[in-house]
């Protein structure tokens, strides 16, 4: 990521090249020294705020400016608070349920879209992307409106429902990309060899889709776990999911506990995304999870 193409496609002046001693880096604008610095600054800016949160979550004093020594007191406050603990459990429950249901539904949708090949499936493919670009505040408001209309009391259930709606699209996009690269002939070969359509799905299609399904599921877990806007609109009184809970607390002043909670959430998110990237390899697949997620793997 941090290395930049060292040789631009335009040929350098041959005379200058010839004079240079072998192995010595050439001087001039075509070398990435300047670009390396640029990339370095970019990453510092990207990660510095996060690093600060992590650092100050271990601060022994209340101060948000001076780091005065290492301590775990803010983590202790976090886990000792019953309401925060409940929120954490609620968030984990929401993310887990969303992951399970959205993964199953999204995979089924992807299968239908790719294999049915009706005249409308192209338009459906585009429609499916709408939830990905809908402003979340609109999605949240409309979900709230819907739940009020059908007189569904706001609770963890309503949050899960709202999360599933937007998560299905993510799963479908990821699984679809994998499914498209799976030749129809492979499924035909399975049926040709005596497997019923159901057996074919179980024995041939699903094993080929596993990396994508798992990666999509973990991605959804991470998205659902740290979602704020949708949760804010659809949450009931108590327990509130962790991000909403943090926001409520911040209104009464920023306390260092926030740093501890933030760090904790960061770890969970990074773990699930990391797992999504690693799992395909752990399952003995050659393609990396990144490629699976981006749908860029070879057939």
């Amino acid at each position: 990521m941090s290395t930049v193409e060292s040789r631009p496609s335009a040929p350098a002046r041959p005379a200058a090249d010839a004079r240079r001693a072998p192995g010595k880096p050439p001087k001039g604008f075509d070398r990435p020294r300047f670009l390396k610095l640029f990339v370095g600054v970019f990453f510092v800016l990207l990660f510095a705020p996060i690093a600060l949160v992590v650092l100050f979550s271990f601060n022994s004093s209340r101060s948000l400016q001076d780091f005065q020594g290492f301590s775990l007191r803010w983590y202790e406050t976090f886990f000792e608070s019953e309401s925060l603990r409940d929120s954490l459990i609620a968030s984990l429950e929401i993310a887990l349920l969303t992951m399970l249901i959205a993964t199953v539904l999204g995979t089924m949708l992807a299968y239908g879209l790719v294999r049915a090949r009706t005249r409308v499936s192209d338009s459906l493919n585009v429609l499916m992307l709408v939830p990905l670009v809908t402003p979340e505040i609109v999605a949240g408001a409309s979900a709230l409106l819907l739940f009020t209309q059908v007189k569904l009391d706001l609770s963890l259930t309503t949050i899960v429902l709202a999360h599933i709606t937007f998560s299905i699209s993510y799963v479908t996009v990821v699984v679809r990309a994998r499914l498209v690269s799976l030749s129809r002939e492979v499924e035909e070969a399975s049926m040709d060899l005596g497997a019923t359509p159901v057996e074919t799905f179980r024995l041939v299609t699903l094993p080929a889709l596993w990396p994508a399904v798992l990666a999509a599921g973990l991605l959804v877990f991470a998205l659902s776990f740290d979602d704020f806007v949708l949760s804010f609109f659809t949450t009931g009184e108590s327990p509130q999911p962790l991000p909403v809970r943090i926001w409520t607390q911040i209104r009464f002043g920023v306390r260092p506990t926030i740093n501890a909670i933030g760090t904790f959430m960061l770890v969970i998110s990074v773990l699930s995304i990391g797992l999504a990237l690693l799992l395909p390899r752990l399952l003995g697949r050659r393609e990396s999870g990144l490629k699976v997620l981006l749908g860029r793997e070879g057939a």
Partner: protein
Amino acid sequence: MSAIRFEGVTKRFGGLAAVDDLNLEIRKGEFFSLLGPSGCGKTTTLRMVAGFDQPTEGHIYLDGEPVETVPPYRRNVNTVFQSYALFEHLNIEDNVAFGLKRKKVPSDEIRTRVAEALELVELHGRGKARPRELSGGMKQRVALARALVNRPSVLLLDEPLGALDLKLRKQMQVELKGIQREVGITFLYVTHDQEEALAMSDRIAVMERGLVKQCSSPEDIYEHPSGPFVASFIGTSNLLSGVVENGCVKLATGASCVAQVPSDCPQGAEVHLSVRPEKIWLDELEEGMVELGGTIVERVYVGTTTQVIVELGPGMRVTALEQNTARVGSDNRWQIGDRVRLGWHREHARVLR
């Protein structure tokens, strides 16, 4: 009893007939090829036998039984796909055992039959490898073993050698033919490669736009093509246009060629005279040959033979093939621009409508 019988089979996609009123009978134990350019309906025909496509009209009989209502997974046929379609998540053994496991064959029998099948395609010892670790030719063999191990009554092969390079393809042609003779299973082979079809088949059906143009043995199709399409698709052929006149074909150059004019070609009918390049003699002609004169316009040396292109008249050229045998001076017997006499035995020319 025939292995496969097509009775008036038609398949339409939209309004277009991919296969049009197909009537064919494929005998048991036969190596039968469907040959034609892409889009001629040969693959559709194969897919209908496998059960992936349903005929719009007509019936297909496998071993005498109609199969319209039988889904692919209950038909006693197996397919070798062009893309091999191996299961990437299974090793070679499990790929080959896939069909037997579905049929609930006892596991020790599976083991021996898989081993036999891998032996047959010379892949013993590679059973634990994954498909992606194998070369194209090896994958092809696995696909073959995976199908053959089920002992189907018919094996369907959809351009199985299409993805291989020329040398490997030639080698696999010989091996496939040998395997077919060894196992005695009916092979229905789809290809667009005429040489491949000629080399392996007992019989060939040449297809064009959903219709069978000719169905016969390789020799018969090559020597006695039924029409201009077959004559030009199978090998190369000189097609000279002319009209029927008193039992001869009068060419556009004015020359008259004695030929066996079929009874359905009346006086004045427009026909093609088809002569294979290797049947054309140059200069040293024999008694009773059809004789024409022309000018040499091109010589193309292609190793074992030299193509000599002769212009008979404006716009009418024939290609003759000279064997480059050890004859002295054969490499420069003719120069471009030389006048030359050429001829052929009358039975080697076919009159085609």
